[in-house]
């Protein structure tokens, strides 16, 4: 915990917030968890449904081995214990978008046990979130209530899609930390290629458990592991953006504080966040909670993994964001900040690394982080839609590095690349943008300028700053192609002697 704990003021003094998150991450896989049906997003309703997904009589689930591999990969990426023996259980409840009348999940024996990840707050400080477990389960279908006033429609495309539920310990202490945790988790999943992480498409959904307590209580909980030191928690279901996570927590914490301070008590319950009003409202109380009647799914054998197989996956894990960030700093000489920004996004990091190949890393980093991302953000594009390829960008950085063009001209070339594409070297060549380092040519321009502006020239001796005017004029006369260093040197010599 950083020195400044997030607190909310109340009539009875300060309050602290404690949170644990349950993240549902859709596993990247061609097929569903227990059936061969496809999983593409946005397909026409009920077109990606097998007999198993529709729970036809006599249908049986068969585990998708690729999904198991993805879960193990994720567990390893979360520095977590991989359980070589795990089991699928049935969670029983009735709902029209749950065809089997039960969800196959891992209740008692999850495939992945305890782990931890390091996250970064807005201010750059870091904190650790411990992972309680990761288990595999089936997604339900989708109920659509707004197509018809009298009916609910059900789309089973999502029914049976593989989810990883990743449960954190109650280690999250502020809205900022909650958002940072989800964001870091998403980054790791995307690096691993085990979840697309797109919250808008529902690939990543968060349930947030929120409770409030008085200062000191949390520390007692951490010392003893005794949950009674913490407040009663409410679970906010299905919050689907980082912004909403922050909003939901802020609202919910304040709601709980108000109730307690007015002499009430918090009921353990499940709540929904309404993104339109920014309010959470009760979905069902503990008394109304389902009795899910979990029991081992008799249609499936326990999942037994070979240690060799797990080790093989471990060996083939890609470099993860923390390692990448550290390498960018230690081997490439980037600042912590630049390295963090680049490593936080898998595609951005990959793009950068291609640009930086054989180039000055800092220069490459500046161009990617500033020029390129500035432009992408302005246009509302992501790096994967970027019209300028990493190879083009690398070419451009190379031209700056070997002084073929100045940084200023490079910006023009970047504009051309963005709008028209092409090979940066050829653009520079064809359009005559090459930097002029021929001192003779520069001298001639300068001599002419001094001759035309004798008073200005004389004033430089008293006001060296006035030399800037001459630099500008030279550049203007030479359409920006003059090597700025050469221009400075010659001007110094001629004006200051």
């Amino acid at each position, binding site marked *: 915990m950083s020195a400044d704990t997030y607190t909310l003021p109340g009539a009875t003094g300060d309050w602290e917030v404690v949170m644990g998150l349950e993240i549902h991450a859709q596993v990247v896989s061609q097929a569903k968890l227990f059936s061969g049906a496809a999983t593409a997003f946005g397909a026409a309703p009920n077109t990606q449904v097998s007999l198993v997904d529709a*729970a036809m009589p006599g249908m049986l689930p068969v585990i998708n081995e690729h999904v198991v591999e993805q879960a193990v990969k994720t567990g390893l990426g979360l520095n977590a214990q991989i359980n070589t023996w795990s089991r699928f259980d049935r969670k029983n409840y009735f709902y029209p978008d749950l065809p089997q009348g039960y969800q196959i999940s891992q209740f008692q024996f999850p495939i992945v046990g305890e782990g931890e990840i390091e996250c970064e707050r807005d201010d750059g400080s870091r904190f650790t979130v411990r992972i309680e477990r990761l288990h595999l389960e089936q997604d339900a279908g989708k109920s659509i209530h707004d197509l018809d006033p009298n009916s609910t429609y059900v789309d089973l495309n999502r029914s049976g899609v593989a989810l990883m539920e990743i449960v954190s310990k109650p280690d999250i202490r502020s809205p900022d930390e909650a958002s940072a945790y989800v964001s870091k988790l998403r980054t790791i999943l995307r690096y691993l290629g085990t979840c697309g992480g797109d919250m808008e498409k529902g690939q990543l959904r968060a349930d947030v458990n929120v409770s409030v307590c008085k200062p000191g209580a949390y520390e007692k909980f951490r010392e003893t592991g005794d949950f009674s030191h913490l407040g009663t928690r409410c679970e906010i279901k299905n919050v689907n953006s980082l912004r909403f996570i922050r909003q939901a927590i802020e609202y919910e914490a304040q709601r709980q504080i108000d109730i307690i301070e007015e002499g009430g008590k918090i009921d353990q319950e499940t709540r929904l966040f309404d993104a339109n009003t920014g309010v959470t409202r009760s979905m069902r109380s503990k008394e109304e909670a389902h009795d899910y009647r979990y*029991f081992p799914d008799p249609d499936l054998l326990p999942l037994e993994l070979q240690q060799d197989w797990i080790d093989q996956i471990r060996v083939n894990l890609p470099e993860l964001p923390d390692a990448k960030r550290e390498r960018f700093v230690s081997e490439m000489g980037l600042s912590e900040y630049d390295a963090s920004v680049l490593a936080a996004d898998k595609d951005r990091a990959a793009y950068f690394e291609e640009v930086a190949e054989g180039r000055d890393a800092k220069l490459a980093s500046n161009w990617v982080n500033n020029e390129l991302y500035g432009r992408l953000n302005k246009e509302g594009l992501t790096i994967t839609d970027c019209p300028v390829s990493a190879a083009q960008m690398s070419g451009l950085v190379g031209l700056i590095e070997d002084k073929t063009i100045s940084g200023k001209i490079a910006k023009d070339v970047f504009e051309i690349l963005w709008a028209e594409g092409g090979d940066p070297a050829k653009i520079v060549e064809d359009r005559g943008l090459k930097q002029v380092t021929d001192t003779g040519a520069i001298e001639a321009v300068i001599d002419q300028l001094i001759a035309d502006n004798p008073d200005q020239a004389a004033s430089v001796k008293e006001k060296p700053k006035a030399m800037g005017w001459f630099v500008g004029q030279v550049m203007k006369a030479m359409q920006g192609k003059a090597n700025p260093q050469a221009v400075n040197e010659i001007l110094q010599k001629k004006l200051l002697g």
Partner: protein
Amino acid sequence: MRTMSDLLKLSLTDVSAKLKAKEVSASELATEAVKACKAAQPALNAFTAFDEDKTQAMAKAADARLAKGEGGLLEGVPLAIKDLFAVEGVDTSASSNILKGFKPTYESTVTSKLWGKGAVFVAKTSMDEFAMGSSNETANTGPVVNPWKAAGGNESLTPGGSSGGSAAAVAADLCFGATGTDTGGSIRQPASFTGTVGVKGTYGRTSRWGVVAFASSLDHPGPFAKTVKDSAMMLQAMSGHDPKDSTSLPNEVPDFVAACGQSVKGLKIGVPKEYRVDGMPAEIDDAWQKGIDWLKAAGCEIVDISLPHTKYALPAYYIVAPAEASSNLARYDGMRYGNRVDGPDLNGTYENTRGAGFGHEVQRRIMIGTYVLSAGYYDAYYLRAQKVRTRILQDFHDAFDKVDAILTPSAPSAAFALGSKSDDPIAMYLNDVFTVTANLAGVPAMSVPAGLDSSGLPLGLQVITRALDEETMFKVGAALEDSAGFTHKAAKWW
């Protein structure tokens, strides 16, 4: 001259030879079988669906293969199929109103395998609703009537259950074999009641894919047949690894048919003392003793053994099976297929649909199952029952360290009168007392007709062997059959 209906009295083995010798065509045989089934239907009520176009098409294809001298193990043989098996395009309703009229677009693995070996579909057979029952009285189409009647009596008897329709169809010579499913004795008890051979292999030997689930960890598809060898042919054709069923055994299927008739000399046969239950009719005991004597005479060594946890098997079974059933039957909610009865709201629709769709026994078991899985009861019931199950498995392991096969009665009585136990669920559940253990342990077991009781009703003996050792089961079964010389048939009254 032999008539076509005499042909139906042949064993599967014998009719197969006639088909291969082209003494009869598959088409003629199928036509005759359908005719016989339909003629018997008003009296026996054993069938739930026919599809004569399908039957004829399959028979014609079989004839074409036979004409070329080709054909599988069951080429051209008409079989009846328990209504629990999905048969593509044919009503598959598990004898339940909730699935009435449901026509699957898929074929169960077991029936696919049978058709792949050349068998011809004749009819779907009635059963206790969702295989829950021991008398075939819970079928939505009413009880099946046993072709057997007590000597001098005219009372309608149960063929047993849940696979009563299949048992009756085979016993009445309406087909040459039938499929059943055995969750707690649903093949072996009806076989015993109808003088037929009923088999379940090792759990996982036959695929459950496409079979409407009752209790997944206990459901064993298996055959009914007229002889032990016929049943071996049937199980041979039905068995084999199915990647669509995660609990299907990957093991190679041994030659069951070859095992029939092999010597049993030197085999050790266990006789478990716990199967002598209070109130068991002396005639059952006598039949059992006869079986022991036959096997001794055939050169077997008889060994008294103990299966100490047997008395806990029935209660454990009636926890585990309803627990799984309560979850397996949740999918029948009227939302996607089957019959829906609308209500004022979602829960009302669920209640109306399931209230109207499921019969009382099914509702009872769903409630028992829901109860034993509920928070606060799970440990006391479900978990404890699973522990009992482990002990029962251990009992068998220990026994099979000493013996090669176990001999017991198949059922505690001969066929009883329809209606005589239908108001007493406990009395009904006791029918499974000798059979549930093999389901809980997943070991192979079969019922072989051993003789008739004093009222002329058939009694069966059960042979149980270690997991994966169906061959010894068939060896012992064939030896019993040979010694029993059971050639009795129900006198035709239908």
